[in-house]
């Protein structure tokens, strides 16, 4: 049972169990998959899980091939890897799609230290925009008349649709969520704990980032 001792040891250090980290990560993955805009990163969770996986893989190598545990642990690792890969890919897809607004907002967020992207995601986004700009220049703009050669970044921007409708479940009772009505009369609704709703993303965006609701 060497595997467990090591695992428990690393748990104590971080003062949270691997189980909770995994649950948080799975929740983050689910929300990221379903929200129209990019959410604050959960890099700590990802790093922690990757560490756990490494531990586990090292321990599996010590077990004999015929040991029942080998296949069970391998299966679990594959499941966790799937969540991590899918989570990171989903974020990259959003970064590529909405790179320009994300970068603009991220610059302000970095100043207040509330960044949504991890440093490497930020670098990726910057390089992506730069590559796009260079590509546009090389392929089209440089061959245009002089007065048309400016790359107008903000005209290229694609924005996430924050007015799209999403399904959600309230993790706790939230009173007075304001839904904007087109007639100008705002409607307030209460979300009871455990209740499920479909409504516009915008009014609940902050609740989602605070973990008060989960997308379904």
């Amino acid at each position, binding site marked *: 049972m060497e595997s467990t001792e090591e695992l428990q040891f690393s748990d104590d250090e971080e003062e949270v169990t691997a189980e909770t980290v995994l649950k948080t990560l799975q929740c983050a993955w689910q929300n990221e998959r379903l929200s129209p805009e990019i959410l604050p990163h959960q890099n700590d969770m990802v790093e922690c899980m990757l560490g756990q996986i490494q531990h586990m893989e090292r321990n599996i190598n010590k077990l004999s091939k015929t040991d*029942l545990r080998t296949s069970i642990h391998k299966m679990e690792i594959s499941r966790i890897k799937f969540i991590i890969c899918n989570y990171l890919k989903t974020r990259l897809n959003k970064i590529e799609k909405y790179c320009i607004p994300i970068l603009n907002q991220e610059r302000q967020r970095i100043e207040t230290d509330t960044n949504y992207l991890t440093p490497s995601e930020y670098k990726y986004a910057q390089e992506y925009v730069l590559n796009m700009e260079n590509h546009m220049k090389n392929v089209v703009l440089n061959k245009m008349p002089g007065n048309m050669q400016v790359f107008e970044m903000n005209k290229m921007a694609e924005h996430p649709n924050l007015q799209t409708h999403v399904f959600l479940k309230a993790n706790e009772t939230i009173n007075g969520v304001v839904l904007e009505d*087109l007639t100008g009369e705002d409607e307030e609704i209460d979300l009871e704990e455990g209740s499920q709703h479909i409504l516009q993303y915008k009014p609940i965006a902050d609740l989602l980032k605070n973990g008060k609701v989960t997308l379904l």
Partner: protein
Amino acid sequence: MEPYEIEFIGENRIISITPNFTHDKIYLICGEFGPFRAGLPVNVPLWLAIMLKQKQKCHVIPPDWMDVEVLENIKEEEKRSRFFTKMPNEHYMVEAKLILGSAAEDVPNAPEIKTIIKDIWDIRMSKLRTSMDALMKTGGGYGRLDHLTMMEINSVKPLLPAAMDNLLRMQMKTKKTAPSLNLNSSTFSQSGSSQNT
């Protein structure tokens, strides 16, 4: 999300099995399970149960609700109620599909159970379609959907949010061009009451 992703999430539910082998506790990242004693029931995640079943190392103990009588009651209740009733389990369809798919011989009356679950699903889906229709007709931008399971929500996902998005877009256009022409003056109160809870 894709249906297989919902299934993936549902696979984390805990169910009971009777192993036919003996083993100490197994310490997984998602928790510790066991000890396994041949013939004694033990709780494991669904994915592990299915995996052990495929290796013929256990029998699955069907969940309490996977019983003809219980399900008949649920079905009657679902038929009687105007609203969605609470399902015994928020991933009932995933659980039923996986258990009946790979461990049908462990479930008494498996074929009947399959039929009843399918009936319940059909009743709920037709209710869902009716509510969606009502929601759209009242021009609603908000609906409450208590007791719907993830798989059920997912099945209307390409359609309902997109329809509501388009409706909103049309309303915004109408408002911009002709502010006096108001298609829906009581959007929320109407949709709130017509939508099943």
